[in-house]
C-alpha cells in the first residue's frame, strides 16, 4: 500500500510539473504570436488616397484664400474682425500642414504606433489648437453690430462640425487602446483588433479632411468678403 502511494506521489508530481511545462510553453508561444500581431503593419499609398489629395488641395486653397489683404475689403465686415479671422485661419492652415501630415507622402507602411501619432497630431494641432482654440469663438460670437457680415449665422453649423469631429476622434482614441490587452488569439480577435489600425487610419484621414473642409469654408468666406486683392 505504501509502495503504491509512493508511486502515485511520483506520478502526480511529474504530472503537475508536466502540466505547468505545457501551459508555460503554450503561453510563451501565444505571447510571441500576440507580439507579432500587435506589430503588424499595413501598406499605404497616399497617391491613391482621395482623402490625402483632397486635404492637400484644401491646404493650398486655404493658403490662397488667406493671402488676401483685409485693408481692401469690399464686403460689410469689420476690418478688425477680418484681420483676426485671417490670422486664425493662417494658424489653422499651418496646423493642418504639419510635419506628420507631410511625412505621409513618403510613407509606404503604417503601424498602429504611426496611426496613434497621426491621431495625436490631429487631436493636438488641428482639433484643440485650431478648431477649439482659434475657431470655436465663432459658435458664440455676439455680432450685435453686424461686424461679421452674416458669418456668425453659420455658428450652429460650425458648432455641429466641431462636435462631430471631436466625438469621432474620441471614438478612435478609445478604439486604439484595444490592442493593449492580452487576449486569446482567434481569427475573430484578429479581425476586430488587429485589422482595426487600417480602418482607424481611414477614419482619421476622413476626420482630417472634414476639419480641412470647415477651415476652407471659413477661408472662402474671408476671400469673398475681402475680394481678390492680394498682399
Amino acid at each position, binding site marked *: 500500500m505504501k*509502495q503504491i502511494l*509512493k*508511486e502515485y*506521489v*511520483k506520478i*502526480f*508530481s*511529474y504530472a*503537475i*510539473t*508536466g*502540466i*505547468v*511545462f505545457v*501551459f*508555460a*510553453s503554450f*503561453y*510563451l508561444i501565444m*505571447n*510571441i504570436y500576440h*507580439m507579432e500581431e*500587435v*506589430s503588424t503593419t499595413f501598406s499605404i499609398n497616399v497617391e491613391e488616397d482621395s482623402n490625402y489629395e483632397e486635404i492637400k488641395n484644401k491646404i493650398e486653397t486655404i493658403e490662397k484664400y488667406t493671402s488676401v489683404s483685409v485693408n481692401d475689403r469690399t464686403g460689410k465686415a469689420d476690418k478688425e474682425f477680418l484681420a483676426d479671422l485671417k490670422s486664425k485661419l493662417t494658424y489653422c492652415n499651418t496646423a493642418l500642414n504639419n510635419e506628420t501630415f507631410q511625412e505621409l507622402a513618403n510613407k509606404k507602411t503604417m*503601424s*498602429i*504606433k504611426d496611426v*496613434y501619432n497621426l491621431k495625436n497630431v490631429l487631436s493636438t494641432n488641428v482639433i484643440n489648437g485650431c478648431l477649439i482654440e482659434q475657431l470655436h469663438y465663432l459658435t458664440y460670437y455676439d455680432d450685435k453690430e453686424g461686424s461679421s457680415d452674416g458669418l456668425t449665422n453659420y455658428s450652429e453649423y460650425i458648432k455641429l462640425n466641431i462636435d462631430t469631429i471631436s466625438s469621432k476622434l474620441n471614438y478612435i482614441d478609445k478604439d*486604439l*487602446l484595444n*490592442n*493593449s*490587452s*492580452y*487576449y486569446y488569439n482567434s481569427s475573430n480577435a484578429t479581425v476586430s483588433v488587429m485589422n482595426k489600425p487600417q480602418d482607424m487610419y481611414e477614419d482619421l484621414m476622413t476626420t482630417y479632411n472634414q476639419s480641412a473642409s470647415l477651415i476652407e469654408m471659413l477661408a472662402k468666406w474671408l476671400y469673398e468678403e475681402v475680394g481678390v486683392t492680394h498682399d
Partner: protein
Amino acid sequence: MIKMINGLLYGLKYLLLIISFALGSYIVLYMYQRLDKPLLDSIFIALPFLILFLLFAINMLCNQKRVTSNLFYNLTCCLVFAVILFIEYRTLFDTNMIANSKLGYNINFNYFADNINAIKVMIIGLIVGNVLFMLPNDDKKA
C-alpha cells in the same frame, strides 16, 4: 552532460526567479501606487513568489536531491520564469501596445493585469510540484 545541463538550469532558475520577482514587484507597486490602492494588498501577488523562494531555499539548504537534481523540474522552472520575464519585458518595452505611451507611465498596466492570473497559476503549479517532489518516493537518489 545531463549533470552539467542540470547544474546550469539549477543556477539559472534562482537567477531568473530573483530578476522576474524584482521586475514584477516594480510593475505591481507602480500599478498599485497609480490606482491609489493600499500597497499591502499587492502581497497576494508576491506571496506565491515568496513561497517558491522559500521552498528553493529549503531544497538547497537541506540538499534535497529529489528536487535539485530533477532536470525536468529545473527546466520547467526556467521556462516559467522566462515566460514571466517575457511578459514583464512586453509590459515595459512593447511600445506597439498603445497603452504603454497613452497612459503616460511607459508601463502597460492593462497587459500586465491580464497576465497576473496566468503567472500565479504557473508559480502555484511549481510550488505544488516542488512539495510533491519533496515527499519520499521510489527514487533511488533520495
